[in-house]
């Protein structure tokens, strides 16, 4: 049976096997990932191209700007990170122990603004910015 022939029908007998296998695969992945617990972090660090540029501790409500040429403070909770690759604005929520990207100028789908800190990591790939939780016992981070 050739390719054009296969495209002529929306469903064939073998499809059931394929869909079943895919569903089993996702079930296995669900079971495997259920065992992994995510912990609350007490702080985070912001990295540009692998170099730490900002550090924050939720408990002490302290924010340490490591690289002044990149990170600009707007107020206690808002910081602008501008590099030659682009601008990101982050907002720290001390009461919720969370941080999010509130603005970016990458012009595409702005993935980092939809990433949640509670999922473990926020990444802005085009600007090489990574926001990573710190001081986690049993964390899965290898880097």
């Amino acid at each position, binding site marked *: 049976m050739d390719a*054009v022939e296969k495209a002529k029908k929306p469903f064939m007998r073998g499809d059931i096997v394929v869909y079943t296998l895919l569903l089993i695969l996702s079930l296995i*992945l669900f079971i495997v990932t259920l065992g992994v617990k995510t912990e609350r972090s007490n702080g985070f660090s912001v990295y540009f191209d692998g170099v730490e540029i900002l550090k924050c501790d939720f408990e002490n409500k302290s924010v340490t700007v490591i690289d002044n040429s990149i990170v600009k403070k707007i107020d206690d909770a808002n910081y602008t990170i501008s590099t030659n690759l682009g601008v990101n604005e982050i907002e720290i929520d001390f009461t919720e122990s969370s941080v999010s990207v509130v603005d970016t100028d990458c012009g595409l789908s702005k993935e980092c603004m939809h990433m949640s800190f509670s999922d473990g990591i926020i990444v802005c790939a085009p600007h090489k910015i990574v926001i990573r939780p710190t001081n986690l016992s049993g964390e899965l981070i290898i880097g």
Partner: protein
Amino acid sequence: MNSKKVALLGLFTALSVIMFLVESLFPPLIIPGAKLGLGNIFVMLCLIYLGYSNSVILVVVKCLIAGIFGGFSQIMYSLPAGLISLTIAFLMLRFIKNISIVAISASASVVHNLVQNCVFAIVVKSYKVLLYAPYLTLLGVLCGILTGLTVYFINKNLSKKIIKNLNIKEKSV
């Protein structure tokens, strides 16, 4: 490879890049980074009409052009996933009997999502992002079925004319 095939390959490439760019304007589906993958409709059509080697060209060119618009760091996410899922689709199309293009598309979509998830985990050095994998698998099945059905409808309405005009033999893959 005649000139009509070259023109068709160019058309498919252009359409898939346009689909990619239009799609990147929308917010992600539920999970960060998740997309419908509408550009892959034309990769699948290319695989059906023009064969595997031409589809590899399409995927590479698509990823390079998309990289120009979306930043070159995107290439390392899109290229490995694109080529591996294309190869899976090709092998299924060629060697497995009794499966339709919709099931092939669903499998390729799942493989694409999982490869991209792994690349992402390696790049950001955090295995925590792998927790997305089960959701990406389910989403991949749904999006793949949608893409596959679109390919089926396009093929249904275009195949006779295209095949006649291009002299594509039915064993082109």
